[in-house]
Protein backbone atom coordinates (compact mmCIF):
# COMPACT_ATOMS: atom_id res chain seq x y z
CA UNK A 1 0.00 0.00 0.00
CA UNK A 2 1.17 3.40 -0.83
CA UNK A 3 -0.18 6.73 0.33
CA UNK A 4 -1.63 8.85 -2.45
CA UNK A 5 1.33 10.60 -3.81
CA UNK A 6 1.54 14.33 -3.97
CA UNK A 7 4.60 16.22 -4.95
CA UNK A 8 4.92 19.37 -2.89
CA UNK A 9 6.21 22.40 -4.70
CA UNK A 10 6.98 24.97 -2.07
CA UNK A 11 9.19 26.72 -4.58
CA UNK A 12 6.07 28.43 -5.84
CA UNK A 13 5.85 30.39 -2.58
CA UNK A 14 9.30 31.81 -3.06
CA UNK A 15 8.55 32.65 -6.69
CA UNK A 16 5.51 34.66 -5.67
CA UNK A 17 6.87 36.05 -2.39
CA UNK A 18 6.12 39.58 -3.54
CA UNK A 19 2.40 38.70 -3.62
CA UNK A 20 2.52 37.58 0.00
CA UNK A 21 4.33 40.72 1.07
CA UNK A 22 1.76 42.83 -0.79
CA UNK A 23 -1.12 40.94 0.86
CA UNK A 24 0.48 41.18 4.27
CA UNK A 25 0.83 44.93 3.83
CA UNK A 26 -2.90 45.27 3.20
CA UNK A 27 -3.67 42.94 6.12
CA UNK A 28 -1.50 45.16 8.31
CA UNK A 29 -3.31 48.28 7.07
CA UNK A 30 -6.74 46.77 7.76
CA UNK A 31 -5.59 45.67 11.20
CA UNK A 32 -4.11 49.07 12.00
CA UNK A 33 -7.14 51.12 11.06
CA UNK A 34 -9.69 48.77 12.59
CA UNK A 35 -7.55 48.71 15.74
CA UNK A 36 -7.47 52.51 15.91
CA UNK A 37 -11.23 52.76 15.40
CA UNK A 38 -11.91 49.85 17.74
CA UNK A 39 -9.75 51.20 20.57
CA UNK A 40 -11.06 54.76 20.37
CA UNK A 41 -14.70 53.76 20.11
CA UNK A 42 -14.22 50.91 22.57
CA UNK A 43 -12.77 53.26 25.18
CA UNK A 44 -15.76 55.57 24.75
CA UNK A 45 -18.28 52.72 24.87
CA UNK A 46 -16.59 51.09 27.85
CA UNK A 47 -16.67 54.40 29.74
CA UNK A 48 -20.31 54.99 28.85
CA UNK A 49 -21.25 51.49 29.88
CA UNK A 50 -19.61 52.02 33.29
CA UNK A 51 -21.64 55.18 33.84
CA UNK A 52 -24.12 55.41 36.68
CA UNK A 53 -26.60 57.20 34.38
CA UNK A 54 -28.90 54.80 32.56
CA UNK A 55 -29.30 57.00 29.46
CA UNK A 56 -25.53 56.77 28.87
CA UNK A 57 -25.26 53.15 29.88
CA UNK A 58 -28.21 51.76 27.90
CA UNK A 59 -27.18 52.82 24.35
CA UNK A 60 -23.64 51.59 24.95
CA UNK A 61 -24.93 48.24 26.19
CA UNK A 62 -27.26 47.97 23.19
CA UNK A 63 -24.39 48.66 20.77
CA UNK A 64 -22.08 46.17 22.46
CA UNK A 65 -24.61 43.37 22.61
CA UNK A 66 -25.76 43.99 19.04
CA UNK A 67 -22.27 43.79 17.58
CA UNK A 68 -21.32 40.81 19.71
CA UNK A 69 -24.39 38.81 18.70
CA UNK A 70 -24.33 39.31 14.92
CA UNK A 71 -21.83 37.80 12.43
CA UNK A 72 -18.99 40.09 11.35
CA UNK A 73 -19.39 38.99 7.77
CA UNK A 74 -22.97 40.25 7.76
CA UNK A 75 -21.84 43.53 9.35
CA UNK A 76 -19.21 44.04 6.64
CA UNK A 77 -21.52 43.22 3.76
CA UNK A 78 -24.15 45.47 5.28
CA UNK A 79 -21.78 48.41 5.60
CA UNK A 80 -20.49 47.98 2.05
CA UNK A 81 -23.79 47.36 0.24
CA UNK A 82 -26.66 48.63 2.43
CA UNK A 83 -25.19 51.75 3.97
CA UNK A 84 -24.78 53.51 0.59
CA UNK A 85 -28.42 52.78 -0.26
CA UNK A 86 -29.65 54.15 3.05
CA UNK A 87 -27.31 57.11 3.45
CA UNK A 88 -25.70 57.71 0.09
CA UNK A 89 -22.37 57.24 1.85
CA UNK A 90 -20.23 54.97 -0.29
CA UNK A 91 -16.88 53.98 1.15
CA UNK A 92 -14.21 52.09 -0.74
CA UNK A 93 -13.80 48.44 0.06
CA UNK A 94 -10.68 48.93 2.19
CA UNK A 95 -12.38 51.69 4.17
CA UNK A 96 -15.54 49.60 4.55
CA UNK A 97 -13.62 46.66 5.98
CA UNK A 98 -11.57 48.90 8.30
CA UNK A 99 -14.66 50.65 9.61
CA UNK A 100 -16.68 47.43 9.83
CA UNK A 101 -14.01 45.54 11.73
CA UNK A 102 -13.37 48.64 13.86
CA UNK A 103 -17.05 48.88 14.86
CA UNK A 104 -17.05 45.17 15.59
CA UNK A 105 -13.83 45.18 17.61
CA UNK A 106 -15.03 48.23 19.57
CA UNK A 107 -17.74 46.11 21.17
CA UNK A 108 -15.14 43.65 22.45
CA UNK A 109 -12.59 46.29 23.46
CA UNK A 110 -15.34 48.13 25.36
CA UNK A 111 -15.95 45.04 27.46
CA UNK A 112 -12.23 44.60 28.07
CA UNK A 113 -11.91 48.22 29.25
CA UNK A 114 -15.02 48.05 31.40
CA UNK A 115 -14.15 44.76 33.04
CA UNK A 116 -10.54 45.84 33.60
CA UNK A 117 -11.51 49.03 35.37
CA UNK A 118 -14.32 47.36 37.30
CA UNK A 119 -11.87 44.74 38.57
CA UNK A 120 -9.90 47.32 40.57
CA UNK A 121 -10.71 47.07 44.26
CA UNK A 122 -12.76 49.84 45.88
CA UNK A 123 -10.04 50.17 48.50
CA UNK A 124 -7.63 51.43 45.84
CA UNK A 125 -9.88 54.32 44.86
CA UNK A 126 -10.66 55.01 48.52
CA UNK A 127 -6.94 55.30 49.24
CA UNK A 128 -6.36 57.54 46.21
CA UNK A 129 -9.24 59.84 47.19
CA UNK A 130 -8.07 59.99 50.79
CA UNK A 131 -4.73 61.35 49.52
CA UNK A 132 -6.69 64.13 47.83
CA UNK A 133 -6.19 62.88 44.29
CA UNK A 134 -8.45 64.23 41.57
CA UNK A 135 -10.42 61.82 39.42
CA UNK A 136 -7.88 62.04 36.60
CA UNK A 137 -4.89 61.63 38.91
CA UNK A 138 -6.57 58.60 40.41
CA UNK A 139 -7.31 57.06 37.01
CA UNK A 140 -3.85 57.81 35.61
CA UNK A 141 -1.70 56.87 38.62
CA UNK A 142 -3.69 54.21 40.47
CA UNK A 143 -6.53 52.64 38.47
CA UNK A 144 -5.24 52.45 34.91
CA UNK A 145 -1.74 51.06 35.66
CA UNK A 146 -3.38 48.18 37.50
CA UNK A 147 -6.29 47.78 35.09
CA UNK A 148 -4.07 47.76 31.99
CA UNK A 149 -2.14 44.79 33.35
CA UNK A 150 -5.36 42.85 33.57
CA UNK A 151 -6.49 44.06 30.14
CA UNK A 152 -3.37 42.95 28.24
CA UNK A 153 -4.12 39.21 27.93
CA UNK A 154 -7.73 39.63 26.69
CA UNK A 155 -6.58 42.54 24.53
CA UNK A 156 -3.94 40.44 22.78
CA UNK A 157 -6.55 37.71 22.33
CA UNK A 158 -8.87 40.17 20.64
CA UNK A 159 -6.06 41.58 18.52
CA UNK A 160 -5.19 38.09 17.25
CA UNK A 161 -8.85 37.53 16.41
CA UNK A 162 -8.99 40.90 14.66
CA UNK A 163 -5.96 40.11 12.49
CA UNK A 164 -7.55 36.84 11.42
CA UNK A 165 -10.89 38.56 10.78
CA UNK A 166 -9.23 40.80 8.16
CA UNK A 167 -9.41 37.77 5.85
CA UNK A 168 -13.12 38.59 5.55
CA UNK A 169 -11.97 41.53 3.44
CA UNK A 170 -11.59 39.03 0.60
CA UNK A 171 -15.37 38.92 0.39
CA UNK A 172 -15.38 42.62 -0.51
CA UNK A 173 -12.49 42.07 -2.94
CA UNK A 174 -9.88 43.68 -0.72
CA UNK A 175 -6.44 42.41 -1.69
CA UNK A 176 -5.38 41.25 1.75
CA UNK A 177 -3.49 38.01 2.38
CA UNK A 178 -6.35 35.57 1.78
CA UNK A 179 -7.56 37.27 -1.37
CA UNK A 180 -4.06 37.44 -2.80
CA UNK A 181 -3.60 33.78 -1.93
CA UNK A 182 -6.84 32.80 -3.67
CA UNK A 183 -5.81 34.64 -6.80
CA UNK A 184 -2.45 32.99 -6.69
CA UNK A 185 -4.10 29.57 -6.45
CA UNK A 186 -6.12 30.35 -9.57
CA UNK A 187 -2.90 31.08 -11.39
CA UNK A 188 -0.69 28.31 -10.08
CA UNK A 189 -3.08 25.47 -9.08
CA UNK A 190 -1.08 24.99 -5.89
CA UNK A 191 -3.75 25.39 -3.12
CA UNK A 192 -2.06 23.15 -0.53
CA UNK A 193 1.28 24.95 -0.64
CA UNK A 194 -0.30 28.36 -0.74
CA UNK A 195 -2.77 27.80 2.11
CA UNK A 196 0.03 26.32 4.18
CA UNK A 197 2.13 29.38 3.50
CA UNK A 198 -0.86 31.56 4.35
CA UNK A 199 -1.20 29.87 7.73
CA UNK A 200 2.49 30.37 8.39
CA UNK A 201 2.25 34.01 7.34
CA UNK A 202 -0.52 34.65 9.87
CA UNK A 203 1.41 32.82 12.57
CA UNK A 204 4.44 35.00 11.85
CA UNK A 205 2.31 38.11 12.16
CA UNK A 206 0.38 37.09 15.28
CA UNK A 207 2.87 35.18 17.38
CA UNK A 208 5.06 38.19 18.31
CA UNK A 209 2.07 39.81 20.01
CA UNK A 210 1.39 36.68 22.04
CA UNK A 211 5.06 36.49 22.96
CA UNK A 212 5.04 40.15 23.99
CA UNK A 213 1.94 39.62 26.13
CA UNK A 214 3.58 36.73 27.94
CA UNK A 215 6.75 38.72 28.53
CA UNK A 216 4.74 41.63 29.94
CA UNK A 217 2.91 39.33 32.33
CA UNK A 218 6.24 37.98 33.53
CA UNK A 219 7.67 41.47 33.87
CA UNK A 220 4.74 42.64 35.98
CA UNK A 221 4.70 39.52 38.10
CA UNK A 222 8.12 40.51 39.38
CA UNK A 223 7.04 44.11 40.03
CA UNK A 224 4.02 43.64 42.26
Amino acid at each position, binding site marked *: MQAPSYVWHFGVIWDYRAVFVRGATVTAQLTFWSLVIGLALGLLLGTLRSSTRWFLRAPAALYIEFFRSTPVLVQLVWIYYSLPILTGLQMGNVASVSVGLGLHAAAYFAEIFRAGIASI*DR*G*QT*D*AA*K*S*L*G*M*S*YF*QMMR*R*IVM*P*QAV*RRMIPPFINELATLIKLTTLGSVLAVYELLHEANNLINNTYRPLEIYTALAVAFAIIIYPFIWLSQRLEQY*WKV*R*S
Partner: protein
Amino acid sequence: MNPVLRIRNLHKRFGELEVLRGIDLEIAQGEVLVVIGPSGSGKSTLLRCMNFLEEYEQGEVYFFDQLVGYRRGASGRLVRDNPRHLNKVRAQMGMVFQSFNLFPHMSVLENVIEGPVIVLKEKKEAAIGRATKLIERVGLIDKLNVYPSKLSGGQQQRAAIARALAMRPKAMLFDEPTSALDPELVGEVLEVMKSLAADGMTMVIVTHEMGFAREVADRVVMIDEGRIVEIGPPARIFNTPTHPRTIDFLRRVLH
Protein backbone atom coordinates in the same frame (compact mmCIF):
# COMPACT_ATOMS: atom_id res chain seq x y z
CA MET B 1 -9.17 76.69 70.09
CA ASN B 2 -11.52 75.64 67.32
CA PRO B 3 -12.15 71.93 67.02
CA VAL B 4 -10.39 70.04 64.21
CA LEU B 5 -13.57 68.21 63.30
CA ARG B 6 -17.09 69.24 64.16
CA ILE B 7 -20.02 67.03 63.25
CA ARG B 8 -23.57 68.23 63.53
CA ASN B 9 -26.71 66.13 63.27
CA LEU B 10 -25.10 63.74 60.77
CA HIS B 11 -27.41 61.32 59.00
CA LYS B 12 -26.49 58.70 56.44
CA ARG B 13 -28.69 56.11 54.83
CA PHE B 14 -27.99 53.25 52.46
CA GLY B 15 -31.32 52.89 50.68
CA GLU B 16 -33.84 51.92 53.33
CA LEU B 17 -31.25 51.44 56.03
CA GLU B 18 -30.46 54.49 58.14
CA VAL B 19 -26.88 53.87 59.31
CA LEU B 20 -26.28 57.19 61.07
CA ARG B 21 -29.18 58.78 62.88
CA GLY B 22 -28.02 62.16 64.04
CA ILE B 23 -24.44 62.27 65.28
CA ASP B 24 -23.05 65.33 67.07
CA LEU B 25 -19.35 65.24 67.85
CA GLU B 26 -16.34 67.52 68.20
CA ILE B 27 -12.72 66.48 68.04
CA ALA B 28 -10.23 68.88 69.57
CA GLN B 29 -6.72 69.67 68.40
CA GLY B 30 -4.37 66.89 69.49
CA GLU B 31 -7.18 64.73 70.76
CA VAL B 32 -7.21 60.95 70.35
CA LEU B 33 -10.80 59.83 70.01
CA VAL B 34 -11.55 56.11 69.92
CA VAL B 35 -14.86 55.00 68.42
CA ILE B 36 -16.23 51.69 69.68
CA GLY B 37 -19.46 49.82 69.11
CA PRO B 38 -20.88 46.58 67.74
CA SER B 39 -20.39 45.75 64.06
CA GLY B 40 -22.99 47.43 61.91
CA SER B 41 -23.39 50.24 64.41
CA GLY B 42 -22.21 52.81 61.87
CA LYS B 43 -18.79 53.63 63.31
CA SER B 44 -16.88 53.01 60.07
CA THR B 45 -19.49 54.97 58.13
CA LEU B 46 -19.09 57.86 60.56
CA LEU B 47 -15.33 57.85 59.98
CA ARG B 48 -15.74 57.69 56.20
CA CYS B 49 -18.14 60.63 56.27
CA MET B 50 -15.41 62.75 57.86
CA ASN B 51 -13.45 62.86 54.58
CA PHE B 52 -16.51 62.34 52.39
CA LEU B 53 -15.53 58.88 51.17
CA GLU B 54 -19.11 58.26 52.21
CA GLU B 55 -21.48 60.95 51.03
CA TYR B 56 -23.80 62.03 53.82
CA GLU B 57 -27.09 63.61 52.86
CA GLN B 58 -28.12 65.37 56.04
CA GLY B 59 -26.20 67.25 58.69
CA GLU B 60 -22.79 68.85 58.47
CA VAL B 61 -19.15 67.88 58.88
CA TYR B 62 -16.69 70.72 59.43
CA PHE B 63 -12.93 70.34 59.17
CA PHE B 64 -11.34 73.48 60.65
CA ASP B 65 -14.57 75.37 59.98
CA GLN B 66 -14.70 74.24 56.35
CA LEU B 67 -17.69 72.17 55.35
CA VAL B 68 -16.64 68.78 54.01
CA GLY B 69 -18.25 67.77 50.71
CA TYR B 70 -20.66 70.71 50.53
CA ARG B 71 -20.61 74.47 50.40
CA ARG B 72 -23.24 77.10 51.11
CA GLY B 73 -25.05 78.12 47.96
CA ALA B 74 -26.39 81.62 47.36
CA SER B 75 -29.71 80.73 48.97
CA GLY B 76 -27.98 79.41 52.08
CA ARG B 77 -28.77 75.84 51.15
CA LEU B 78 -26.01 73.28 50.96
CA VAL B 79 -24.81 72.40 47.48
CA ARG B 80 -22.20 69.90 46.44
CA ASP B 81 -18.66 71.23 46.86
CA ASN B 82 -16.53 71.41 43.74
CA PRO B 83 -14.17 68.45 43.46
CA ARG B 84 -11.00 70.54 43.61
CA HIS B 85 -11.86 72.00 46.96
CA LEU B 86 -13.01 68.65 48.31
CA ASN B 87 -9.68 67.12 47.24
CA LYS B 88 -7.82 69.91 49.07
CA VAL B 89 -9.76 69.15 52.24
CA ARG B 90 -9.18 65.42 51.89
CA ALA B 91 -5.45 65.93 51.40
CA GLN B 92 -5.25 67.38 54.90
CA MET B 93 -6.69 64.26 56.52
CA GLY B 94 -4.75 61.02 56.50
CA MET B 95 -6.67 57.77 56.38
CA VAL B 96 -5.63 54.25 57.27
CA PHE B 97 -7.81 51.36 56.18
CA GLN B 98 -8.59 47.93 57.56
CA SER B 99 -7.33 46.29 54.34
CA PHE B 100 -4.25 48.61 54.07
CA ASN B 101 -4.99 49.50 50.43
CA LEU B 102 -1.37 50.07 49.49
CA PHE B 103 -0.89 50.55 45.76
CA PRO B 104 0.30 47.10 44.64
CA HIS B 105 2.14 48.35 41.55
CA MET B 106 4.39 50.59 43.61
CA SER B 107 7.20 49.88 46.05
CA VAL B 108 6.95 51.08 49.65
CA LEU B 109 8.90 54.24 48.80
CA GLU B 110 6.78 54.91 45.71
CA ASN B 111 3.61 54.46 47.75
CA VAL B 112 4.80 57.00 50.30
CA ILE B 113 5.97 59.68 47.82
CA GLU B 114 2.89 59.31 45.59
CA GLY B 115 0.71 61.79 47.49
CA PRO B 116 3.41 64.44 48.04
CA VAL B 117 4.62 64.32 44.41
CA ILE B 118 1.27 63.99 42.61
CA VAL B 119 -1.07 65.91 44.90
CA LEU B 120 1.19 68.36 46.75
CA LYS B 121 3.50 68.80 43.72
CA GLU B 122 6.61 68.40 45.83
CA LYS B 123 9.96 67.91 44.15
CA LYS B 124 10.70 64.21 43.93
CA GLU B 125 14.08 64.46 45.71
CA ALA B 126 12.55 66.37 48.62
CA ALA B 127 9.65 63.92 48.81
CA ILE B 128 12.04 60.96 48.84
CA GLY B 129 14.00 62.56 51.68
CA ARG B 130 10.92 63.02 53.82
CA ALA B 131 9.45 59.66 52.86
CA THR B 132 12.64 57.87 53.84
CA LYS B 133 12.49 59.41 57.32
CA LEU B 134 8.84 58.39 57.71
CA ILE B 135 9.54 54.87 56.51
CA GLU B 136 12.38 54.68 59.00
CA ARG B 137 10.05 55.91 61.72
CA VAL B 138 7.60 53.06 61.07
CA GLY B 139 10.51 50.59 61.04
CA LEU B 140 10.53 49.65 57.37
CA ILE B 141 13.79 51.20 56.19
CA ASP B 142 15.02 47.80 54.98
CA LYS B 143 11.81 47.44 52.86
CA LEU B 144 12.14 50.71 50.97
CA ASN B 145 12.09 49.17 47.50
CA VAL B 146 9.94 46.16 48.29
CA TYR B 147 6.48 45.70 46.78
CA PRO B 148 3.47 45.37 49.12
CA SER B 149 2.75 41.74 48.20
CA LYS B 150 6.10 40.80 49.74
CA LEU B 151 5.24 42.37 53.11
CA SER B 152 3.40 40.98 56.13
CA GLY B 153 0.09 42.57 57.09
CA GLY B 154 1.70 44.49 59.92
CA GLN B 155 4.41 45.84 57.61
CA GLN B 156 1.82 46.81 55.01
CA GLN B 157 -0.20 48.70 57.58
CA ARG B 158 2.86 50.53 58.85
CA ALA B 159 3.73 51.49 55.27
CA ALA B 160 0.15 52.72 54.83
CA ILE B 161 0.53 54.89 57.94
CA ALA B 162 3.75 56.35 56.50
CA ARG B 163 1.94 57.03 53.21
CA ALA B 164 -0.79 58.94 55.05
CA LEU B 165 1.74 60.86 57.19
CA ALA B 166 3.66 61.93 54.09
CA MET B 167 0.81 64.31 53.29
CA ARG B 168 1.52 66.18 56.59
CA PRO B 169 -2.10 65.66 57.64
CA LYS B 170 -3.75 67.77 60.32
CA ALA B 171 -5.72 64.74 61.47
CA MET B 172 -5.53 60.98 60.99
CA LEU B 173 -8.51 58.67 60.56
CA PHE B 174 -8.02 54.98 61.36
CA ASP B 175 -10.67 52.54 60.18
CA GLU B 176 -10.13 49.32 62.16
CA PRO B 177 -6.40 49.37 61.37
CA THR B 178 -5.61 46.10 63.12
CA SER B 179 -8.73 44.05 62.41
CA ALA B 180 -7.24 42.27 59.37
CA LEU B 181 -3.97 41.42 61.11
CA ASP B 182 -2.76 38.20 62.63
CA PRO B 183 -2.74 38.65 66.42
CA GLU B 184 1.05 38.67 66.68
CA LEU B 185 1.25 41.60 64.21
CA VAL B 186 -1.23 43.87 65.98
CA GLY B 187 1.30 45.19 68.48
CA GLU B 188 3.72 46.67 65.94
CA VAL B 189 0.95 48.74 64.35
CA LEU B 190 -0.42 49.92 67.69
CA GLU B 191 3.11 50.97 68.72
CA VAL B 192 3.36 53.25 65.69
CA MET B 193 -0.07 54.71 66.47
CA LYS B 194 0.94 55.30 70.09
CA SER B 195 4.02 57.22 69.02
CA LEU B 196 1.83 59.38 66.76
CA ALA B 197 -0.51 60.12 69.64
CA ALA B 198 2.47 61.01 71.81
CA ASP B 199 3.52 63.52 69.13
CA GLY B 200 0.19 65.27 69.50
CA MET B 201 -1.47 64.08 66.28
CA THR B 202 -5.23 64.51 66.20
CA MET B 203 -6.59 61.00 65.69
CA VAL B 204 -9.98 59.36 65.25
CA ILE B 205 -9.68 55.60 65.61
CA VAL B 206 -12.33 52.97 65.02
CA THR B 207 -11.04 49.85 66.75
CA HIS B 208 -11.85 46.77 68.77
CA GLU B 209 -8.55 47.01 70.68
CA MET B 210 -9.94 47.97 74.07
CA GLY B 211 -6.58 47.81 75.81
CA PHE B 212 -5.19 50.32 73.32
CA ALA B 213 -8.24 52.55 73.75
CA ARG B 214 -7.89 52.54 77.52
CA GLU B 215 -4.22 53.43 77.32
CA VAL B 216 -4.10 55.96 74.47
CA ALA B 217 -7.54 57.53 74.04
CA ASP B 218 -8.42 60.92 75.46
CA ARG B 219 -12.07 60.11 74.97
CA VAL B 220 -13.99 57.02 73.97
CA VAL B 221 -17.28 57.25 72.13
CA MET B 222 -19.70 54.33 72.05
CA ILE B 223 -21.94 54.14 68.99
CA ASP B 224 -24.93 51.89 68.57
CA GLU B 225 -27.56 51.82 65.83
CA GLY B 226 -26.27 55.06 64.36
CA ARG B 227 -26.37 57.08 67.56
CA ILE B 228 -23.86 58.09 70.20
CA VAL B 229 -24.94 56.30 73.35
CA GLU B 230 -22.08 57.29 75.60
CA ILE B 231 -18.95 59.41 75.45
CA GLY B 232 -16.23 60.17 77.95
CA PRO B 233 -12.70 59.48 79.17
CA PRO B 234 -11.68 55.83 78.79
CA ALA B 235 -11.44 55.24 82.52
CA ARG B 236 -15.05 56.25 82.98
CA ILE B 237 -16.39 54.41 79.92
CA PHE B 238 -14.56 51.19 80.73
CA ASN B 239 -14.84 51.23 84.52
CA THR B 240 -18.25 52.73 85.11
CA PRO B 241 -20.30 52.61 81.90
CA THR B 242 -23.80 53.89 82.46
CA HIS B 243 -25.72 53.03 79.31
CA PRO B 244 -27.05 49.44 79.18
CA ARG B 245 -25.83 49.13 75.56
CA THR B 246 -22.29 50.03 76.55
CA ILE B 247 -22.36 47.69 79.51
CA ASP B 248 -23.62 44.89 77.31
CA PHE B 249 -21.11 45.60 74.52
CA LEU B 250 -18.11 45.81 76.87
CA ARG B 251 -19.14 42.61 78.62
CA ARG B 252 -19.12 40.83 75.29
CA VAL B 253 -15.81 42.20 73.94
CA LEU B 254 -13.84 42.07 77.17
CA HIS B 255 -14.56 38.40 77.80
